[in-house]
């Protein structure tokens, strides 16, 4: 397997070098744009992994955030998550802030692809629900407001 890969790489590499050195002398794309890289510059929000230090939990709750968070919930989350304990497509949100740490919740909201790849708890949920949680394009600040709404839903003051 590895052997094959290396041979293939060698062939391709040699091919590329030779192709570039040949070609009749007209090479206007001296500095080739890396198209693969270019694609990453696009305006779809995929959060970078959040750290414990990125999140501050304070009491009392920020009432404005709770309202904001509720609006985001209704637009982007409600289709799959109830505010009770009932599972719909995903788990119900009642007591989610007691089951999960804020960091986990925030990463799940902003960075679901990473979580499904690396986090055992997230993977267990995928096995349970059988639908990958969609990336709903939440910025870190949005996710923080949703978390505030979850805390309020769990009875925090």
């Amino acid at each position, binding site marked *: 397997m590895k052997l094959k890969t290396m041979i293939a790489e060698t062939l391709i590499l040699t091919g590329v070098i*030779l192709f570039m050195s040949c070609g009749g*002398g*007209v090479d206007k794309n001296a500095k080739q744009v890396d198209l693969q890289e*270019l694609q990453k510059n*696009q305006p779809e929000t995929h959060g970078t992994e959040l750290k414990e230090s990125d999140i501050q939990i304070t009491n009392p709750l920020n009432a404005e955030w709770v309202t904001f968070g509720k609006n985001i919930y209704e637009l*982007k989350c409600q*289709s799959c998550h109830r505010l009770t304990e009932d599972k719909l*497509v995903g788990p119900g949100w009642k007591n989610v802030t007691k089951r999960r740490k804020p960091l986990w919740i925030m990463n799940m909201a902003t960075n679901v692809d990473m979580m499904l790849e690396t986090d055992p708890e997230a993977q267990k949920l995928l096995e349970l629900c*059988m639908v990958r949680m*969609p990336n709903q394009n939440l910025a870190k600040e949005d996710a923080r407001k949703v978390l505030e709404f979850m805390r309020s839903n769990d009875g925090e003051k």
Partner: protein
Amino acid sequence: MKSLFKTFLLVALTASTFTWLQSCKPKGAQSAVSGDAASKVYVAPGKYDEFYNFVSGGFSGQMSVYGIPSGRLFRVIPVFSVDPEKGYGYSEETKAMLNTSHGFVPWDDLHHIALSETDGIQDGRWVFGNGNNTPRIARIDLKTFRTAEIIEIPNSAGNHSSPFITENSEYVVAGTRFSIPMDNSNGDVPINTYKQNFHGTVSFIGVDKTSGNMNIAFQILLPGVNFDLARAGKGKSHGWMFFSCYNSERANTLLEVNSTQKDKDFILCVNWKKAEEYAKAGKGKLQSVKYAHNIYDEQKQMASSAIENQVMMLDPKDCPDMVYFMPCPKSPHGCDTDPTGEYIVGSGKLAAVIPVFSFTKIQAAIAAKNYEGDYEGIPVLKYDAVLHGEVKKPGLGPLHTEFDDNGFAYTSFFVSSEVVKWNVKSLEVVDRVPTYYSVGHLSVPGGPTRKPWGKYLIAYNKITKDRYLPTGPELAQSAQLYDISGDKMKLILDFPTIGEPHYAEAIPASLIMKNSQKIYKIEENKNPYAALGDKFARVERKGNEIHVYMTAIRSHFTPDNIEGVKMGDMVYFHVTNLEQDWDVPHGFAVKGANNAELLIMPGETQTLAWKPEKPGVYPIYCTDFCSALHQEMQGYIRVSAAGSNVPISFSTGKTAPAVTTTTDKK
């Protein structure tokens, strides 16, 4: 094992070096396909092509998008024809895009492509296409690869010499292939009064710098010749537009014979800066006409169509020094300006030479009034006075010319099925290659601009014959890719295309993909029928209309059980895709609908109208595989008799109390 690996490597290296030596042996006798062709068109799995190629879909009415050098088809953009796959022309939001002064027209014939430019260089913002049959020009937004605008052209028939763009996208143009009685005259005239009653026009359609929105700035009234292709001046010739035309005989029947009597037809030179001044100075006449102007509002995600009533017509009689004819042998098709803007290449389909005109000489001839006479009142410049030179015996049936960045021109030859490379200055033929078969247009990346990117040439062929596995009487259309980076052109790939490709343009991928939109932000969705969240999902009755405001997300609709629809009702499903992830559209279909599906992009709302034809229960489902539970993304809608008292109700995930009755089968 290890030594085996080493041997392998050695062999591999030797082999590729050998190939290299072979392929680099230059200027030898040329075979149809060179040995390293495969590596030149190979784009490894997961890797991107270097260029986008926007290809006219001909009589499919659409525009297709290929990768170069792989020749892979990425997308067919619906433009002038309905597309049930995407719901284009079927959804309530998109129907208005195909509105015309003749009503809803579901088809057209898209011939030519023009990519927007800034300073004569492709800028990757928009691509334009012409509708040949019911004269129109469409603008496609390259952020979304969707048709954003369509404008109809009045006083026109056979909008062939279109949309050819000026170097700062000031204008796209439209010239009449068919001359006709003008729209505001009595068109009910004997056809053999052609010479008295029929006119051609060329139209200049302004393009807004920011929005891209089009407006017909002015039209020019011209004799009843047939305008064929066009090209804008650039650099020193910026401000001029050149239109080829045939049928200077002004025949109205059996054109094959009657329009090919004269040895020379014309290229029309339009000083559009001058025309602009005349239009501003009120030298034109406002004519009463009727044409549709359709715009897709990206925020409302909805097209609207307005009928416009006026157009400014400039008559050369009132506007001196605006237009000139330049004789050109014989029945010219292409008239292409080289990257410097100095040379204009005419390609007479029936000519034995390729004439190359000099812009400097044209200016001098105009200044000296070096005319050989006039044609219907328009000065005709002396051929010898404006000619840079002729390419002698280039081939049979020259059609169209593109340029590279090294001073070479590439002309297609329909009759002799070949591409001929020649030096624009010295007019010397330096190379020729066969095409398979009967080539029409050519495309070099950036070829029509001041800055060709070169590297590849694509030939779009009219006859495919034996190139692919046969598929009955109708065969795939065919394009061929040539490597033009060396002295000799090398055929490296055949690839099939949709419809019949006419013109195409290619552009470096990097200029487009950085702006390519991944989703519609749901927060910015201004569709008045959107349900922005399940809280707003509902069913409403308005007289005989039922409006279903529905949401879709992996993998269910809300609501998915709907009752209370009655016979005679018109049902509108307004489906909002709540997803915000790239490449997760949802589809929507309902059994028996005399309509297409909806295909709803993330964050978008689209509407399907459905008139039930009899009482019963109708399933609905998502047509675009969205998750492991896609198959479960389904629901029901119940239709009752006209007089029934079943109330409107709707739900998702609610199970009604068990019901024991079954349907009666008496």
